């Protein structure tokens, strides 16, 4: 019986054992499945690096996301300390240990900071670390999950694409003053490779004081910063990798996203613009100096030439008066040419003097009657007008703020010309004025004279350029040139409308400074 009983117990025991074994296998299988499912789950998360560490930070597990983001395979990294993910300068100041200490103390820790990939390149990461404790409360290790912020939706690929399209160097800086993103232009301008700059402090490429301000700007509200910077480019110097500086202009724009405030700095290299600005300033200064010299030269030359010429003219005239008919006929003719030549040269020199003086001793502009200015001109022209039998009429001319003396001279030259260059008919001249839509008066002097071929319209305003010989009309060709110079100095301009045989109309515009 006993043996039968024993047999029964053994059987029962064996059965039980077999059952237990299969249960264990089942449990093991279930556990294996569970672990595999977790593994699959973790590896399925490509966007996050998820790994576990022992209490000292040695890595004990590694997911596919971590491999992708940080560049290390599980075999390579397991057993190594997580401090290798930190930039050297952070390691130096003990940041990795500090992170673990804080996490152990608080249970968990979140931070945003620079991390280094296996290839040495840097990226801004968002990091979450949790301390793992057993039931007794002993620290067993840490779990970390983190992701590359430059891959996130706001500041990721799309943003990078935008930056690359910009013609300026673009650098995105976080609140810690670290460069998070940059474009190709920034690489070119500053002479760095992208991975050399990402994670570096922005002050390594732009001046220190300004870098701080840039960050301070970034921490204010976006609206505030925008209001401050509208249209204000700040001129500074950027520093290339080789240490050389170049002038830049920076526009800042804050970007608030889920990860906080980033500042986008558009950095324009303004070397060329500076150079052309400097060139322009230099050219204008040179031009002014050369203009002044020319003015001075014209005055001195004409003034100093006048003295010896006065001697030549006076004594040839004296010769002509005293010795006419007392020498032979050749002598009379020669003396006559000498007298004529010196007389004409005197007129030219006086005109040149008048031109070099024109508008240089201008008086203060005040409200004057242009009607009075014309009357003054007509008084000076009285003899000429009477001789030619000219009829000069005019509309009522306006009050205008300008130099009345110069305006009278302009009228005198234009009306004088209109009377002088007449055809068979007696000269008829009409002076009128019209207000344009803008803020200027246009004066017109119309005549019934010879008229001018349009091809000469420019030429007639050039110094000593004439359309007629001395035998037809006397003169040096100075009048219109002086008018033009005076008008330019008064802020106006002059032009002509004419057809040969149909008379001419000279128009000139003067600004009405009152705007009324």
């Amino acid at each position, binding site marked *: 019986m006993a043996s039968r009983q024993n047999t029964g117990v053994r059987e029962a025991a064996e059965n039980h054992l077999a059952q237990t074994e299969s249960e264990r296998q089942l449990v093991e299988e279930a556990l294996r499945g569970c672990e595999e499912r977790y593994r699959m789950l973790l590896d399925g998360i490509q966007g996050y690096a998820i790994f576990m560490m022992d209490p000292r930070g040695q890595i004990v597990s590694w997911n596919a996301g971590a491999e992708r983001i940080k560049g290390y395979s599980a075999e390579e990294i397991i057993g190594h300390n997580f401090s290798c993910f930190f930039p050297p300068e952070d390691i130096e100041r003990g940041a990795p240990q500090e992170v673990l200490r804080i996490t152990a103390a608080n249970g968990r820790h979140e931070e945003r900071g620079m991390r280094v990939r296996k290839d040495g390149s840097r990226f801004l990461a968002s990091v979450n670390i949790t301390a793992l404790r057993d039931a007794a409360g002993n620290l067993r290790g840490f779990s970390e999950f983190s992701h590359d912020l430059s891959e996130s939706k706001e500041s990721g690929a799309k943003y990078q694409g935008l930056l690359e399209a910009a013609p300026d160097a673009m650098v995105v800086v976080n609140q810690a003053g670290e460069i998070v993103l940059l474009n190709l232009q920034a690489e070119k301008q500053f002479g760095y490779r992208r991975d050399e700059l990402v994670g570096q402090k922005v002050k390594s490429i732009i001046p220190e004081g300004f870098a701080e301000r840039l960050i301070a700007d970034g921490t204010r509200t976006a609206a505030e910063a925008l209001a401050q910077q509208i249209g204000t480019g700040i001129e500074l110097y950027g520093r290339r990798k080789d240490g050389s500086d170049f002038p830049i202009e920076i526009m800042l724009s804050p970007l608030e996203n889920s990860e906080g405030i980033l500042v986008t700095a558009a950095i324009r290299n303004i070397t060329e613009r500076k150079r052309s600005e400097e060139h322009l300033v230099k050219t204008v200064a040179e031009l002014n100096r050369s203009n002044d010299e020319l003015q001075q030269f014209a005055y001195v030359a004409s003034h100093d030439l006048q003295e010896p010429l006065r001697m030549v003219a006076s004594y040839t005239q004296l010769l002509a008066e005293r010795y006419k008919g007392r020498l032979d006929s050749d002598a009379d003719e020669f003396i006559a040419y000498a007298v004529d030549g010196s*007389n004409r040269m005197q007129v030219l020199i006086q005109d040149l003097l008048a031109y070099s003086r024109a508008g240089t001793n201008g008086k203060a502009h005040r409200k004057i009657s242009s009607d009075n200015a014309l009357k003054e001109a007509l008084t000076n022209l009285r003899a000429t007008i009477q001789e030619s039998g000219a009829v000069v009429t005019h509309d009522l001319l306006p009050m205008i703020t300008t130099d009345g003396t110069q305006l009278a001279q302009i009228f005198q030259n234009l009306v004088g010309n209109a009377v002088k260059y007449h055809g068979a008919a007696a000269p008829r001249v009409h002076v009128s004025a019209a207000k344009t839509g803008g803020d200027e008066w246009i004066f017109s002097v119309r005549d019934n004279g010879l008229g001018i071929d349009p091809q000469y319209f420019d030429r007639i305003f050039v110094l000593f350029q004439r359309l007629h010989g001395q035998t037809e009309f006397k003169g040096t060709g100075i009048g219109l040139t002086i008018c033009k110079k005076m008008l330019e100095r008064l802020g106006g301009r002059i032009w002509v409308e004419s057809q040969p045989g149909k008379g001419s109309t000279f128009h000139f515009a003067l600004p009405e400074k009152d705007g009324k």
Partner: protein
Amino acid sequence: MMESIGTDAKAIEVLLVEDSPGDVRLTREALKTAKVLINLYVASDGTEAMAFLKREGGHTNAPRPDLILLDLNLPKKDGREVLGEIKESPALKSIPVVILTTSASEADILKSYLLHANCYITKPVDLKGFLNVVKSIDNFWLSVVRLPHEPR
């Protein structure tokens, strides 16, 4: 250069301060037709003019001019200084001074009158004008106006 023409005792003494011999000659030509007898003395720079007026150097016997024709742009001492010294000197300031110069500058005209020039004439550039000006100086200052007697 110092010269005089005519030695008539009743002649009017004129000092011409002028550095251009051409202008001296022209002035003399113009004065040839003067209605009165003129003794014309010429000083070719400002220093010589002052020596003449103060009877210094070789001018111990120089007469006191009745009229001075003064150019402004002169070597050594210029006409403005000469004018200033004449008009500050109690002995000389009663002598009429006619500025006869090529300068038409407003600044020169104003300065001359501020220094008490008796009149200011810009030399005409043509011969006829010049001769007419000298003739009118002759006519006005030497015939029309009455000049002061030399103070004793």
